[in-house]
């Protein structure tokens, strides 16, 4: 396992809130170009782990390596500079800004204009703004948004806002994209579209995707590898098929009366995935 294939490696990550250990000694590594999912019951520490990776939280212990360099404890803006982008579980768009502006904000780290360029409106500034705008429009088109560039982000319907969030994340030119429950609240057709989009992002843009997901259908059909968390600990990792048949995973879910059935209900997916694995 060389570093080039392991884009993200976490070892012994611990995050505590007061007396509560939200993430407990999680080891984790993912290969480049994969779609990787983290699942687990509510309160398992998934989002906390995500926030630790993206710099919103500082881990108390452990190391997180991204492309071979330690990123744990860096502030979020530094992490974005390293080409990691994320979306949020409860969409956090800048509602008072237009869709286009939202995406331009996403491109913040990729613009090099200075305050002086801005005030003097240098040629460099104008060219860069034009480029950024064009790129933003391309991204809008890429995620399937049309004619909404000048709309306020908050005026879009839910599905549209999810797409803007993804476009905004893509604008920062990530190599790793963290998606926090990207299909939450979507109907099956919308989820299907979203999954299609994620695959394209991976296949066409070569971006590694790490996602937290509750919808087992989505998880099982899109992920190439799944990690399961419970009580802040990683309890299992493996291919979808392995996870589906892992007894401790089933216990973690069923023991708590989990929502989506993981065993029987998604057997069809597992079969499908097994075929994909083989191919």
């Amino acid at each position: 396992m060389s570093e080039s294939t392991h884009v993200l490696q976490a070892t012994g990550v611990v995050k505590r809130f007061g007396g509560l250990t939200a993430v407990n000694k999680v080891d984790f590594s993912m290969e480049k170009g994969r779609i990787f999912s983290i699942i687990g019951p509510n309160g398992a520490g998934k989002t906390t782990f995500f926030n630790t990776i993206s710099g919103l939280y500082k881990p108390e212990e452990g190391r997180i390596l991204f492309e071979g360099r330690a990123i744990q404890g860096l502030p979020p803006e530094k992490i974005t500079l390293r080409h990691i982008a994320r979306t949020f579980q409860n969409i956090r768009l800048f509602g008072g800004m237009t869709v286009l502006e939202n995406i331009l904000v996403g491109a913040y780290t990729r613009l090099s204009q200075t305050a002086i360029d801005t005030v003097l409106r240098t040629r460099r500034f104008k060219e860069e703004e034009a480029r950024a705008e064009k790129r933003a429009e391309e991204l809008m088109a890429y995620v399937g948004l049309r004619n909404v560039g000048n709309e306020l982000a908050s005026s879009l319907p839910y599905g549209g806002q999810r797409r803007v969030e993804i476009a905004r994340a893509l604008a920062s030119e990530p190599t790793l994209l963290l998606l926090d429950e990207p299909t939450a609240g979507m109907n099956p057709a919308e989820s299907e579209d979203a999954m299609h989009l994620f695959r394209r992002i991976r296949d066409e843009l070569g971006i590694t995707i790490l996602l937290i997901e509750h919808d087992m259908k989505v998880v099982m059909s899109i992920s190439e590898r799944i990690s399961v968390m419970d009580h802040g600990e990683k309890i299992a990792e493996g291919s979808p098929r392995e996870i589906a048949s892992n007894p401790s995973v089933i216990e973690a879910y069923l023991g708590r009366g989990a929502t989506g059935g993981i065993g029987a209900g998604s057997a069809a997916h597992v079969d499908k995935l097994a075929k994909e694995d083989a191919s």
Partner: protein
Amino acid sequence: MKPTLRERLGVLLAFCNKGRNPYWLTGGLIILGFVLVYLSPRSIPAFLLFVGGSSLAYFLEMKKPARLAFAVLVAIVLVPILGARNIFYLEVIFQIAVFSALALGLNIVVGFSGLLNFGYMAFYAVGAYLWGFFGSQQPFLLHEIPGTAPPGTPFFLAPDWFYLFIFLGIIVAAIVGLILGLPVLRVRGDYLAVITLAFGEIVRQLLNNLDKPLNLTNGPQGISPIQKPTLTPEVVAFFNQIFEPLVGRPVTANQFYNILFYLIAVAVVIFVIIITFRLDDSRIGRAWTAIREDELAASAMGIPANKLKLGAFAVGASFAGAMGVLFAASRTFISPESFTFLASVNVLTMVILGGIGSIPGVIVGAVVVTILNLQVLQSISLWLAQLRQSDAFIPIINFHWKDLSNQLDPSKYQRLVFGIILVLMMIYRPAGILPAGRRQRELEHVDSVIDDEVDSSIAPGAASSSGAVSKGKEDDHV
């Protein structure tokens, strides 16, 4: 069904914007207002007509060069002429310019980045005291009794250093803004408001107290005289050569100072407006707005929130610093009384009334509040005073005006008026008279790479204008 008022106004507006109408209307009103003010230099309705006509250049739809031409005509030619005839108007417009710059600066902090600042006048004070100290005899009076100067004390600097000090004012105020900003970064929302209020009070009290052990500020006595930039007789003569026939009499050097300060103030304001517009429409401005909307999401997008907040504080402060220098020179006297909490709230009222985050809105706010304060309230009071001295009475209830209590003069209730404005604006129109709109861009409509994906549900919904004030999300942690 009768058309509603709004529909009628809409029709009127449509008419105003039809064809060449905007040009005729604007030009006509400006000229009409100008002539009326020229003929009757003290008539306030005429003056308001002139101001209203000038503002049409902004509000109606017309080509950019035409707008600019109108603006230049009004600012450089018409106002100085009217001002030379009635210096009161020049003063009103001078103050509008000063307060516009202050309000624009505060708007960067409050409107763009959503950081409430109640101590904004402190930065104005920094600029004013900077020139007040160096542009007077004060450096030689460090050991004198406050308010006294031995006869023959020289001035510390030559008067024309003033121009350099405008720039120094920018820099020093920006540094003070950074100093305040640094600790304040850890605080948000209403705590920030209270901290800045405390900071403003500290600065005012320091200015008031620093007459000992070393007499730096003269304390409550204030610093005076402060020098104005020099004015050569040639300049005055030149102005008179051109404008004397229009003004109707030669302008003295003292009166010309009013025009000079007006022009400097207008220059500074234009400079400030350009900078503000350009900052707003750049990655910095977008980042400020993003921080205002959702700081956490902004930093997840790679925006260094602290740096940008500091920047907002510094830029906002720098405008106030420049205007402070100008203020000190134009008044030749400064004292801590000018930099109270009330003054800070005054500027905040302009920002909120006009439209928080909206550049034209903030200027409108400065215009409305200044005119309200200097002209409207005062005039009503004067009018009541006139009535009180007459034998007039209201017939039906047989109320003699001279019985009207002095205590009911509207000019006495500036705070009441401002207070009510603030409350009503917050309840009915939190976004202000001219709410901030987002910039609409010409989009090229890149063809979607995959057409089948676009579902109809993504069509734009009803655009709801959102309150421009920072919308803190209650759920702090993702």
